[in-house]
């Protein structure tokens, strides 16, 4: 198999004295979708923040395309081609859809490239084109998620870190968004690291999966193998209860938008 584009080795990350990531290693190969599964609080978001440079690891190495990037400033990481589509959308609420997309391309300066990327985003998310002049805060949850993904694409990334893109969305919308992610992977060869609690959907989409528990990787394997595994089946059933809680949390969060 080809060399991994993203190689994470023995990463440890802390919130103050709390150790949230306890020695995680994983590989993402170019063109692959790698899913990271795990219950709430397992450390999936923290792992992504550590890759994108929003948090610095205490120990360990992260290698992207042969270069070590652990502890780099977030804007340096984006310039290298890693974009983080955060949990909970995090759009710029008072800026328009178009302006949000423009900020996604902040690290680029080639106007032609930016226009091309914007057309690409609109071809995958036609609703964003219809609403390009609308303030992002007034979009529905699903549209905001599409904007968050589209804004990530505007950075012209080589790998996207997608943190729970299905959070709080209806099953139909989840299907739509996962369909678009699959197309992006097939047609644009976009490499993705996907965090999900919706294990079934994530493994259907992914090539490879990792399972995290309290800051550690406890299992990994090819996605189709994991799908059949009994542990995952149990884990997946466990997640369904979590789903309801997530929904409530999203509702609470949504009130301030």
């Amino acid at each position, binding site marked *: 198999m080809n060399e991994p584009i993203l190689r994470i080795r023995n990463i440890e990350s802390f919130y103050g004295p709390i150790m949230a990531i306890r020695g995680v290693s994983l590989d993402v190969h170019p063109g692959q979708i790698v899913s990271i599964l795990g219950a709430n609080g397992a450390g999936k978001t923290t792992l992504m923040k550590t890759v*994108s440079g929003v948090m610095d690891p205490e120990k360990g190495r992260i290698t992207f395309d042969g270069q070590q990037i652990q502890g780099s400033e*977030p*804007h340096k990481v984006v310039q290298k081609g890693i*974009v*983080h589509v955060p949990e909970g959308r*995090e759009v*710029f609420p*008072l800026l328009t859809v178009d302006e949000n997309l423009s900020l*996604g391309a902040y690290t680029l300066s080639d106007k032609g490239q930016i226009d091309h990327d914007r057309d690409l985003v609109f071809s995958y998310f036609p609703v964003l084109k219809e609403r390009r002049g609308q303030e992002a805060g007034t979009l529905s949850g699903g549209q905001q998620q599409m904007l968050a993904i589209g804004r990530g694409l505007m950075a012209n990334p080589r790998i996207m870190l997608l943190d729970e893109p299905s959070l709080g969305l209806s099953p139909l919308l989840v299907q739509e968004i996962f369909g678009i992610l699959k197309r992006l992977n097939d047609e644009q060869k976009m490499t993705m690291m996907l965090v999900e609690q919706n294990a079934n959907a994530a493994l259907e989409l992914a090539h490879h999966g990792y399972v995290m528990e309290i800051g550690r990787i406890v299992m990994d394997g090819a996605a189709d193998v994991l799908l059949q595994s009994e542990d995952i089946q149990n884990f997946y059933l466990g997640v369904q209860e979590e789903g309801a809680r997530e929904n409530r949390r999203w509702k609470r969060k949504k009130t301030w938008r």
Partner: protein
Amino acid sequence: MDNAQLLISGLANGCVYGLIALGFVLIYKATEAVNFAQGDFMMLGAFVTIGLTNTEYMGLPFWLALPISLMIMGALGYLIDRLIIRRLFGESQTAVVILTIALGFVIRFAAGLIWGHEPQTLQNPLAGKEIRFGGLVLGMEDVAVIVVTILLTWGLYVFFSKTKLGLAMQGASQNQLAAYYMGIPVKRVQGFIWALAGVVAGIAGILFAAKGSVDPTTGLLGIKAFAAAVIGGFGSLPGALAGGLIVGVIEPFASRYVAAGYSQIAPYALLLAVLIFRPHGLFSQVRVKKV
């Protein structure tokens, strides 16, 4: 004096309050902290320009002194962020607020030391000129203040909505975390916002010193501008300007029609009323607040 003339001179004062209020809001939106030295920045901008252009000091030509003084104010804002505020990263916003109050004391002290405590005015080409307009006699300075403020407002609008850096400033103030994720160098952008706040304070100071006199305590009128910013809804730039205009216009009318001793509290009475009846300000963008 005619009501229309009261209105014009009130608007001219209001422009200065509005520009200081704009500085408050710029920094508040970027850093969630209030820079209580903003009024003193204004005073400093006035004295720096006086120092450059007045004949008893350096005596540079007025139009040369302007850009130099604005550059000095911009650099000062940038350096204050870079060397002082950024050190407090991670500390509570109260720490930043207390620091800016202390900074105000330092600026007042330094200005007194350098330029003395006597009131001074900026020697400028418009001084003493008048415009007659219908039956009105308007001070040229008042008109210039209003015109400059309108132009500056328009320029800021274009900057914030059309330029990449302006958009990034908006983004960083609406959702700082998302700005990091998008690769916006948030700290550098905040430095630019402090620089911009310094330039705007400089312009306010120049306008103020062109139409009246300044002394080192002049910056204390920043408290009126603070009221103006609150009246306008602390998160909104147009609101800050509008709040400034409202306070500016209320003052001369209150002192004309309300008994002396009560008239001075008019802006604060309005502030109180706004806080009670529209706690987010008259022109607030309530959705902007996230927590």
